[in-house]
């Protein structure tokens, strides 16, 4: 198997990136009261859990956490899944009157975030929604931007950003691959 073109974030850099995002969230929202963290399947979930943990440590309040599957809201379904598998959406708290921090690993075309916004709004009317991502790789197809980014990474379309996390992959690392090399 071929090697990645580059390591974008090591485990330490990933941890520091998330810590910085947690501080920015506290700064911008003047604390963590009335916040909620919602991760988008799959790798948005562990990132959301880590962020919720960091926010709780920083502010001494428990920040509720939920998970969102956006499969039923996608507008590009013909391009996905030989087998449509839907994962669990679980938001065990009322999102009304909360500022929701939506968390995903990579921000690319913006279509996943658009779907997530629709899915969230069907669950209630949050006071606001902010977006936190580990990597912003550009190539937006919709007018969407992230509020918190650990790493901005200009990429070519033929490149792939692979985020690996302890919880899902046994290791924390972000790599840049050429699409040809992972086919």
């Amino acid at each position: 198997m071929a090697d990645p073109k580059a390591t974008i974030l090591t485990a330490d850099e990933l941890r520091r990136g998330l810590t910085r995002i947690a501080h920015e969230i506290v700064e911008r929202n003047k604390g963590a009261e009335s916040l909620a963290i919602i991760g988008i399947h799959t790798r948005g979930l562990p990132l959301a859990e880590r962020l919720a943990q960091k926010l709780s440590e920083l502010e001494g309040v428990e920040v509720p956490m939920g998970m969102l599957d956006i499969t039923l809201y996608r507008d590009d379904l013909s391009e996905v899944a030989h087998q449509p598998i839907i994962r669990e959406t679980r938001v065990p708290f009322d999102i009304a009157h909360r500022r929701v921090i939506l968390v995903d690993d990579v921000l690319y075309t913006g279509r996943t975030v658009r779907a997530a916004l629709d899915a969230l709004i069907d669950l209630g009317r949050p006071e606001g929604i902010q977006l936190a991502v580990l990597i912003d790789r550009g190539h937006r197809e919709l007018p969407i931007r992230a509020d918190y980014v650990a790493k901005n990474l200009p990429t070519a379309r033929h490149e792939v950003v692979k985020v690996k996390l302890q919880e899902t992959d046994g290791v924390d690392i972000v790599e840049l691959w050429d699409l040809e090399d992972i086919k």
Partner: protein
Amino acid sequence: MTSPTPHTPRPRHLLDFQEWTPERLTALLDNADTMLQVLDRPVKKVPALQGQTVCLAFFENSTRTRTSFELAARRMSADVFTFAAGSSSVSKGESLRDTVEVLTQYKVDAYVVRHHASGAAHLVARYTGKPVINAGDGRRAHPTQALLDAYTIRQEYGSLEGKKVTIIGDVRHSRVARSNAELLPKLGAQVMLCGPATLLPADLAALPGVTVTSDPREAVRGAHAVMALRLQQERMTGGYLSSLQEYADQFQVNEKLMGEAESGAIVLHPGPMNRDLEISTEAADGPRSRILRQVENGQAIRMSVLYHLLVGRE
């Protein structure tokens, strides 16, 4: 969750279970979990089938199946229209093929077909080129009912593997029994079919994982789920039964008979029920009953089937 092997072609229709692997069936049941969540939300609607049109082609009367499919399709944001044969050109002699070819011109994306003739859904599939879901054809199949039965049992026990499911009643005329006999063993369950000898077709005993008996106590012994079938009184003119009372005395699913089953065994019924004939009111309304749960699950299963057949195809 189970993912099927990537090279298994996705079935285009749900006519019966012949083309459906256990992996795909499991994925379909898994997706129904999410659909149930959608039904619990304040906004019970997702945009997955936006822009698609589903035709409910009902050539046979049905209220609950049609309502369930209609709501399922609407919850997924599909446009839905019902073609009711009684008020259509079918009543003027138009053939099923011609009817389907006319409906096709309305740019329908999927058909849900119910028909009194066995094999009608296959015929519709042949002439439309679009996904067809069999909502009951003659005595042959009622696959979404079997799926919701399987789902309800799985919900109770976590898995169908090694579970004994007893189906009691008019097996001969029951497409529900036939579909369950085909589906449940694929998912690892054993099926015991039981009824008076006159209402037990011998061919079903040849299916893998299926046993038939006319002894209800033997049938229910050790069962994890017991399903009573509706006694189709309109079809009981052929000398199948000596009397309804005798049938009830012997084959009714009631608390006494359920005493032979596993301690936590559940009671199912595909509806509509003849209370105190094939099922006692006590059993139908008691703590073991999952009959209303079946109705709720039916909507989620039908959403999952529509999703599986219509979404993500090239």
